[in-house]
């Protein structure tokens, strides 16, 4: 029997393993072929000439633990049972432990529209892994559908690899896609330090307080889009379909007004051989669902998250969560959440408090903010946890 099993070898899982190693017997399980999770492929400029290179960070984190921790890659978890301990069924054996950390990260949400099943259509995350990790270009020229922090960052990354992006625009509005130009504009504003224009960059933090100014700028945003940071961003154009017989050949775009209503006779085709769909990220929590755990829907965290405290505890004794399963944030926060969960297992309250403080500081200073309302979402979650704890007494 192991002390702790960690599901997910991403930033949260590797950090948790690093904190526990030496003191406790630990196994990390991941279905991917290499440790690192979605660190593999991350690449952005944190400051002048200072790069966040996820692949390097993943390799460093893995080296830190490989001698003392059993890391099982290429292994999928298929079921979990809990009685006096946890029993983890995998595609490569059954393992037991006293503690479990679920650090399964997030999945990319999809933006269905006609033609989205053609070869050459992929998520932006797929394009990121191809470009920065596998080093195979997703194609000769692409169109990105969906304007959110993830799609903006990855569009920049395609540029670093000299892969032309011809347009970044909205998906056609339908029953499943309801993002409006105003939402996309808010995204551009919330990008703060990575904002695609000087005007938005300098104004980003104050703009959030001034809805009237935002409204004016949204109306004034040119219909043909703007070219900023080398990216052709168009919040008033939507892709109505993706065309091709056996693979992507073009997309058909249409102009809209500031409310996202289509303008007639503005359709035009843009040729491309790959298309990236992006509708943001959602916490990946099937593992917790296997144990019938309570979940809370919080939009600013990305969707349903397992009910948990700010100390990463859940309703199941010995089961902790860490990383994007607790809400969509950056890898630095995931790392500290992993260390926080591990500190809880070690009973090291001083360390736990310190990581909690670091998490809050990072939230204030984050370069990429995935949702402007994130802090409120975290407070709402904590109050659900408090209500739940009281209900037990």
């Amino acid at each position, binding site marked *: 029997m192991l002390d702790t099993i960690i599901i997910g070898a991403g930033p949260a899982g590797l950090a948790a393993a690093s904190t526990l190693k030496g003191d406790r017997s630990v196994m990390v399980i991941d279905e*991917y072929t290499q440790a690192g999770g979605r660190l593999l492929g991350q690449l952005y400029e944190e400051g002048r000439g200072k790069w966040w*290179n996820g692949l390097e960070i993943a390799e460093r984190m893995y080296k830190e633990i490989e001698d003392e921790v059993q890391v099982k890659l290429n292994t999928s978890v298929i079921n979990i049972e809990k009685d006096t301990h946890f029993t983890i069924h995998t595609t490569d054996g059954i393992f037991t432990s006293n503690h479990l950390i679920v650090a399964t990260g997030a999945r990319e949400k999809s933006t269905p529209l006609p033609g989205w099943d053609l070869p050459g259509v992929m998520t932006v995350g797929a394009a990121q892994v191809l470009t920065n990790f596998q080093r195979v270009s997703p194609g000769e020229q692409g169109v990105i559908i969906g304007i959110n922090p993830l799609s903006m960052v990855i569009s920049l990354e395609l540029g670093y690899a000299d892969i032309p992006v011809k347009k970044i625009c909205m998906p056609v509005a339908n029953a499943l896609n309801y993002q409006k130009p105003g939402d996309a504009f808010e995204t551009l504003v919330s990008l703060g330090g990575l904002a695609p224009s000087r005007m938005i960059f300098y104004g980003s933090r104050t703009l959030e307080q001034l809805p009237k100014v935002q409204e004016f700028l949204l109306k004034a945003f040119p219909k043909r889009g703007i070219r900023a940071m080398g990216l052709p961003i168009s919040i008033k154009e939507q892709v109505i379909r993706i065309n091709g017989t056996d693979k992507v050949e073009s997309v058909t775009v249409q102009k809209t007004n500031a409310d996202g209503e289509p303008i007639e006779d503005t359709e035009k085709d843009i040729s491309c051989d790959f298309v990236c769909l992006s509708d943001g990220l959602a916490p990946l929590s099937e593992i917790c669902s296997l144990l019938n755990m309570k979940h809370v829907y919080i939009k600013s965290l990305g969707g349903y998250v397992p009910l948990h405290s700010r100390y990463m505890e859940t309703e199941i004794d010995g089961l902790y969560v860490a990383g994007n399963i607790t809400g969509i944030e950056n890898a630095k926060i995931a790392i500290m959440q992993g260390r926080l969960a591990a500190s809880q297992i070690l009973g090291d309250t001083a360390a736990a408090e310190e990581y909690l403080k670091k998490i809050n500081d990072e939230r204030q200073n984050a370069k990429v903010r995935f949702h402007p309302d994130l802090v409120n979402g975290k407070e709402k979650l904590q109050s659900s946890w408090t209500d739940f704890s009281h209900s037990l007494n």
Partner: protein
Amino acid sequence: MTRRITNHKILGSFEVDLVTFYWNGLELHGHRGESLTAALLANDIRTLRLHEKDGSPRGLYCNIGHCSECRVTIDGKKNQRACLNTVKEGMKIESQSMLPNLTEGGRNDA
């Protein structure tokens, strides 16, 4: 056409370490240790399977094991996710295609 990004202005350069594999009997080359999705795309192969029901072409979608759109047969083993398997010397990969229609009256039947 697709290409390998052997030179990258921030990530630097790397050299391709070739391995031979077979795609539907066709001899191709990949980079040792890379996923089958990457190896096939580097050979400009985008269609990885034909849909079980209508035979429409499908390719890689999420590339990290979540969507299962990239299912292929690897050395005789069916329904393996191409994105979670790495290319190995002599590996035989085959695409899967339409299944015979044994039932009638399904919702989508014409």
